[in-house]
């Protein structure tokens, strides 16, 4: 959702957004179509069932003890407070997320590897990295 709102600013910097998920294609399509009363995401959503992207960038796995940590539940509550609601899960719940910036020459300009569930960088950090990469 935050990226959806920040997309115009990202495009102003000559970049765009691509979401990658571990779930099914129909879920990616539902996000782009705004199914279930959600805001339709206007950037491409693709799937990576083989975890090629995740492994390539070294995005980690959720360890069992992390489900017991306050940080994980804080992130859940923060997302809930922003209006995020959990839908049907068909992806890999043990996969940690991450954010990378790749330029047109395929060179990596920024990497953020989550340390726990719901651990995403602030949008401002991503935008700053985009500015620095120009």
């Amino acid at each position, binding site marked *: 959702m935050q990226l959806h709102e920040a997309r115009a600013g990202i495009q102003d910097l000559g970049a765009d*957004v691509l979401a990658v998920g571990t779930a099914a294609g129909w879920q990616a399509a539902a996000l782009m179509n705004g199914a279930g009363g959600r805001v339709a995401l206007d950037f491409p*959503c*693709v799937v990576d069932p083989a975890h090629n992207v995740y492994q*390539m960038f070294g995005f980690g796995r959720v360890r069992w003890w992390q489900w017991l940590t306050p940080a994980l539940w804080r992130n859940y509550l923060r997302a809930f407070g922003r209006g995020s609601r959990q839908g*049907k899960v068909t992806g890999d719940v043990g996969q940690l997320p991450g954010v990378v910036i790749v*330029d047109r020459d395929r060179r990596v300009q920024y990497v953020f590897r989550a340390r726990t569930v719901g651990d995403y960088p602030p949008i401002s950090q991503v935008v700053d990295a985009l500015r620095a990469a120009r």
Partner: protein
Amino acid sequence: MNTPRAIGVGDVVPPVEIEMANGSTVELGSFLRQTLVVVAIRYYG
């Protein structure tokens, strides 16, 4: 067997296949007409 080193800042991304929502397979580079913010989430739910 050694685990391949993760790609990091300054590295060039090798060809990698992903799937479109319709199930077709594409290479990540097909989205690299401009700089790309790739957000790899846990799952779509």
